């Protein structure tokens, strides 16, 4: 039995080694095959290819990245970052980021992430920044921010035929908000406490898609969300919904870098300001929001 056991140990060791090798090898094949399959396609395709390239450049990409600019975003967050008509990643923030990467001579890598794991992704160096309608309030101590670059309000969306027309009408109603969102932060502010307490219920949901479905189906009466997102949702998908004119105080979007990574943050900021000078930002704003207003980076 003893000898038998020893033999097995050897097999186990060999197995674990083989496992390691195949697992790594497996990754390479996956990466390169999908890379070649999507040759010529743009963002989503180059995401994997980009990751692959960064991989081949070994440990070049550590803190602050040489060669690539990996932007972490929540792919369920139109219009800031999402899957576009052609199946590739697109959005206001991603378009800005891509232009910045180009100007910095870096390979742009949009990396959709699990929003719950954004800090882990950023701190472990898997992504260079979070650029995704990322509210700065309450997070100033956790990140090195570029911004604010975009002003935004937290608004309430209700059904078109709803009798809710002001914040005071929300009394006793079922309200939803995205978890870990700027909307939730705003509601948790001291000044909004009485409003929040007046709600019948406040439910935190995973993403706006769920919240919109709840609103349409009657599972909730109102959603607290970013105004840019709300306007886009209603306009693009012709939702039977409206935005209350009363809103919570303004809050601001920033680009979040790992705490202390000022070198990269400064470069990005400088580039954005250049783009503003040259009018590039105005064009992008017009494309996504129908107005040149809004970009506030100083």
């Amino acid at each position: 039995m003893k000898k038998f056991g020893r033999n097995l140990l050897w097999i186990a060791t060999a197995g674990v080694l083989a496992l390691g090798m195949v697992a790594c090898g497996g990754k390479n094949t996956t990466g390169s095959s999908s890379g070649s399959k999507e040759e010529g396609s743009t963002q989503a395709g180059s995401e994997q290819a980009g990751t692959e390239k960064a991989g081949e450049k070994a440990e070049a990409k550590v803190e602050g990245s040489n060669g690539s600019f990996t932007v972490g975003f929540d792919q369920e967050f139109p219009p800031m970052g999402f899957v576009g008509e052609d199946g590739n990643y697109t959005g206001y923030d991603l378009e800005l980021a891509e232009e910045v990467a180009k100007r910095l001579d870096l390979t742009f890598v949009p990396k959709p992430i699990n929003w719950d794991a954004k800090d882990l992704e950023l701190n472990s160096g898997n992504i260079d920044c979070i650029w995704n309608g990322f509210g700065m309030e309450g997070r100033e101590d956790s990140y090195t921010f570029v911004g604010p670059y975009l002003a935004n309000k937290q608004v309430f969306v209700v059904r078109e035929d709803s009798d809710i027309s002001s914040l005071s009408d929300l009394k006793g109603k079922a309200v939803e908000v995205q978890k870990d969102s700027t909307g939730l932060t705003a509601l948790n502010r001291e000044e909004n406490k009485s409003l929040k307490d007046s709600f019948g219920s406040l439910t935190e949901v995973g993403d706006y898609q769920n919240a919109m479905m709840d609103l349409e189906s009657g599972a909730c009466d109102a959603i607290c969300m970013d105004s840019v997102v709300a306007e886009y949702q209603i306009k693009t998908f012709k939702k039977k919904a409206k935005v209350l004119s009363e809103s919570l105080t303004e809050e601001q979007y920033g680009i979040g870098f790992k705490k202390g990574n000022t070198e990269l943050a400064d470069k990005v900021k400088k580039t954005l300001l250049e783009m503003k000078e040259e009018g590039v930002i105005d064009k992008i704003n017009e494309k996504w929001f129908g107005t040149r207003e809004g970009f506030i980076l100083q």
Partner: protein
Amino acid sequence: MEWTVVLWKLGEGLLVSLGIFAITLLFSLPLGLLVAFGRMHKNPLISGIIKIYISFMRGTPLMLQLFMVYYGPYYIFKVSLHPGYRMTAVYIGFILNYAAYFAEIYRSGIQSMDRGQYEAAEILGYSKMQCFFRIILPQVWKKILPSITNEVISLVKDTSLAFSISVMEMFTQAKALSSSQSSMLPLIMAGVLYYIFNFVVAFIMEQMEKKMAYYQ
């Protein structure tokens, strides 16, 4: 968006899901057997360690284990991560988790074997290795196949947990498409694809069970 684009994106996700599924089975089935041996080992240190491993794998969420495997090296050992490690971490997490489940299935199968089979083999002069691989394992395999089938079907659905460490498998793609289109359709299509996937898996497992039915 064209429905072909939706299908294309879902197909990309499906390939990732399939890869996780295949690699996990390929390695966790043999690894599970080794773990089962460790669990039944005479040395209490070895069997104790393996017991703790199995209870950890079965007692904590797979999502948490994936986090540990992926982020652990950085947060515990300060090793900076290689971008290619993401997929490897998914494979390692799934393999370690499923090996633990398979180990317990193997163990129950092996322990339910009649002692007479071992004794007959010993009297006839088979070595321990021959006895196990020629006589015990083929019979154990038949006994445990229905339990294995259950796990394999769970695995198909569990692949969606890979998104916790930002791997773009099929369910993640479906959710992203759903929000960009503000439509349930991509989710329904993903559901159909999962169902077909599992239908094929169940069919293959059923064929294997039939093939094993030549004796009682």
